[in-house]
């Protein structure tokens, strides 16, 4: 690699593929930026230390199952006040836990030495979005972060088919998109009760997770897939009956009495009734379909390179997807090897989460410092102000990925205000000119503005609120 390339490549690696540099990191990265990125792929599926003690989704689901049983009993016997008090306490506890989970997740992004791994996790987690809502689905609040680790992170070094299967069989996704209650009209239960098919998950599998709207499926295919995944549900409690299948509560369970019997046709192919394998075979077909490769490649290049993704880059990733059979390590490496990724004229507007984390990294925010622990709280809350609280996207399509959305006039002004607040409160430790030199590529105008600032506070505010700091 020549010197000119290395000049900016370090910044490109840190910003495009990471969350921005911590001071001092650019020197390390610049020695071999591509290697720095590819090395991170080795340990990409390891759960970070800080998250290892968080409860698994199964634990939370079993708790929820026990609570639902107790609530039914209480509804019959206890007074309304006691029930309401318990509900309120449960809700408070679940909110407390979810806040802790989100804080830890943010902390990992801020402190990690493998930011590329975290960025890839966010990408796939957004592709397979799960979002929290209330009512019957309130349990999603405390299983969203575990879902991200269990279904997504642990498959980042595997292949797309494995991740797809893990996602569509995870209780979080089944609950989020109403498949846990979807019943085949001709199944045992369907014929006895007045409940039936719900197409929500099947539709989003086709439209969002695999083929995309251009993939050539029809309404009939949606219904067909929905039938094939009836019975894909969650066990809430251990059954008392010894022969019953639900001996492992809080997990995915295939429930034959809910399953629509018979052969179903998807995109012209027959899938014979074969228990859980019927739906699994359909998913495998979808995972390997060329339209899926095209869809995923387009999203990856859009996310990492530009809002208007260069077609040649999409084609390259698509080819790697197809030729490697959807190998995620191969796909992720191919991203690093894209020529376009190293050309600075392609840039993306940072999302609020990316923006907040890049500022925290620039300031070397660190969980071993008491002041910084409070800073983590305020950063988590800042995401509320920016409308990007994790797992609250408005739809299964997840967070948008373009400057038109995140760069509205109002949103931009809010970033500036927030950066200014941060600078006002923390700049005594930091010399903005030194910081500029450590984290930004050469920019005479910005350097001059910082030099001429009235105070260190203002200099720092100018750095973080500058237009150049908004892009990656």
């Amino acid at each position: 690699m020549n010197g000119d390339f290395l000049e900016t490549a370090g910044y490109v690696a840190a910003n495009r593929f990471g969350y921005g540099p911590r001071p001092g990191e650019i020197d390390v990265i610049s020695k071999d930026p591509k290697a720095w990125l590819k090395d991170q792929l080795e340990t990409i599926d390891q759960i970070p230390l800080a998250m290892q003690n968080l409860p698994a989704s199964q634990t939370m689901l079993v708790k929820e199952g026990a609570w639902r049983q107790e609530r039914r009993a209480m509804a019959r016997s206890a007074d309304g006040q006691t029930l309401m008090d318990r509900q309120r306490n449960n809700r408070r506890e679940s909110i407390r836990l979810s806040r802790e989970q989100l804080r830890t997740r943010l902390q990992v992004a801020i402190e990690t030495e493998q930011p590329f791994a975290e960025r890839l996790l966010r990408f796939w987690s957004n592709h397979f979005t799960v979002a929290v809502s209330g009512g019957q689905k309130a349990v999603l609040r405390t299983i969203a972060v575990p879902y991200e680790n269990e279904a997504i992170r642990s498959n980042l070094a595997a292949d797309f088919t494995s991740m797809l299967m893990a996602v569509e069989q995870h209780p979080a996704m089944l609950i989020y998109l109403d498949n846990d209650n979807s019943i085949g009209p001709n199944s045992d239960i369907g014929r006895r009760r007045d409940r039936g098919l719900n197409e929500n998950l099947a539709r989003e599998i086709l439209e969002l997770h695999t083929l995309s709207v251009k993939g050539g499926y029809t309404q009939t295919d949606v219904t067909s897939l929905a039938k094939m995944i009836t019975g894909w549900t969650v066990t809430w409690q251990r059954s008392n009956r010894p022969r019953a299948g639900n001996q492992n509560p809080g997990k995915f369970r295939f429930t034959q009495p809910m399953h629509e019997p018979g052969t179903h046709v998807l995109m012209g192919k027959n899938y014979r009734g074969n228990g859980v394998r019927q739906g699994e075979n359909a998913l495998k077909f979808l995972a390997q379909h060329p339209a899926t490769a095209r869809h995923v490649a387009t999203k990856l290049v859009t996310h990492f390179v530009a809002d208007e993704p260069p077609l040649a880059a999409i084609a390259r990733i698509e080819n790697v997807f197809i030729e490697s059979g959807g190998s995620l390590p191969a796909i992720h490496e191919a991203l690093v090897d894209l020529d376009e990724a190293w050309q600075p004229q392609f840039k993306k507007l940072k999302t609020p989460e990316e923006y907040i984390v890049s500022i925290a990294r620039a300031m070397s925010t660190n969980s071993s410092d008491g002041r910084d622990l409070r800073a983590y709280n305020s950063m988590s809350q800042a995401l509320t102000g920016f409308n990007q609280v994790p797992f609250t996207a408005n739809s299964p399509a997840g967070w948008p990925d373009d400057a038109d959305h995140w760069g509205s006039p109002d949103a931009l002004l809010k970033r500036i205000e927030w950066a200014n607040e941060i600078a006002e409160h923390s700049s005594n430790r930091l010399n903005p000119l030194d910081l500029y030199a450590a984290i930004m590529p050469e920019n005479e105008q910005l350097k001059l503005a910082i030099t001429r600032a009235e105070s260190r506070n203002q200099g720092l505010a100018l750095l973080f609120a500058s237009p150049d700091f908004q892009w990656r």
Partner: protein
Amino acid sequence: MRADKQREVNYKRRQLLKSLVAIPLVSSLSMIPSLSFAAYAASGDKRFILVILRGAMDGLAAVAPYGDPALTGLRGSLLPAENELHKLDSFFGLHPSFSNLFNLYQESELAICHAVASPYRQRSHFDGQNVLEIGLDGPDQAESGWLNRCVPLIGQSNRKNTNASPAMAIGPAVPAVLLGDAEVGSWAPAILPVPSDSTMARLQRLYSEDEFLGAKLEQALLARDMVGENSMNRSRRPGQNFNVMIDATAKFMSQEHGPAIAVMESSGWDTHANQGATQGQLARKFTELDEGLARLKRGLGTSWNNTVVVVVTEFGRTAAVNGTQGTDHGTAGVAFLLGGSVNGGKVLGQWPGLASGNLFQGRDLRPTTDMRSLFKTVLRDHLGTEMNKIDSIVFPASSAAAYLDGLV
């Protein structure tokens, strides 16, 4: 960047630099404008507010065709009792939650269009919303929204003194209907203090060099200048509170130099499970919408007389209940038109009927009015946009969508 867009951006940059001198910078001690500002809006300038309900609002629940014999068989458990509906005539009834809308109907300030849909016939939310907002007959056929294309066509006599765009998005992001070459404003509640004048001035100089972000910042400051910092607007959950958005829209639209066009959004309409009937999930959303629109009318004051509000959704929902006491994505639905300028008190459109032979693809309400007809009519008859410009620039290739007479 395209050459014409570059030229436009350069123009904006010069304007921004000029405005550093002309327009006072935002101060953290701005006076809180009181609602008496509404008294200024006697200018006679027409206002248009578009409310987009995202998630496919169930039109058959909102305005039940109780006179249709097939309804009970299809909707059974999801239907309110007939005597709970607000009867509009011998055939249609508003959902019980819509008491304020019912009053507006009786005062001829609400018109309802039933069995209306955009040209889109698939059932993807995202493509459906895209078609609704881009204004063509299929998804992803243009980069700009139809309201953005209107911006250069709006003639406003009292707007010579301001750079602020005549169109605004109320909420944290600009929706696709307002995206395009014309700059538009956006506003959402503030929760942090503004930076000092000195910092803002320095930042504006830095931003003048960034084509994309510089124009955004200018619009934001102009909007902020219009309302000032206001503790009423502080919200711990900006973007979540429908009433805060309603209040802001009312404030902006009732100002003399305020925007002519505003767009608001509401989501949470995708009721696949446990939708409820007289009570329940959907009823709560209806109440929120009903009370919000009433609040909007109050907030607009005399401006209400010059205002048309159109409430739309990307498509309706299935005629029959699904297996989880909800409904799935459908086709035709309902649109509301309200405002002092509306010729209300009627239900527009041809009712296609709910007998199974009349359903679209055997499952959805069949559309008999094109959504674009509503939009085109409002633009021509309320905002005074020239018909040939509407048909060539705003809604090209929309001859299938006829203008409606006597709407406003």
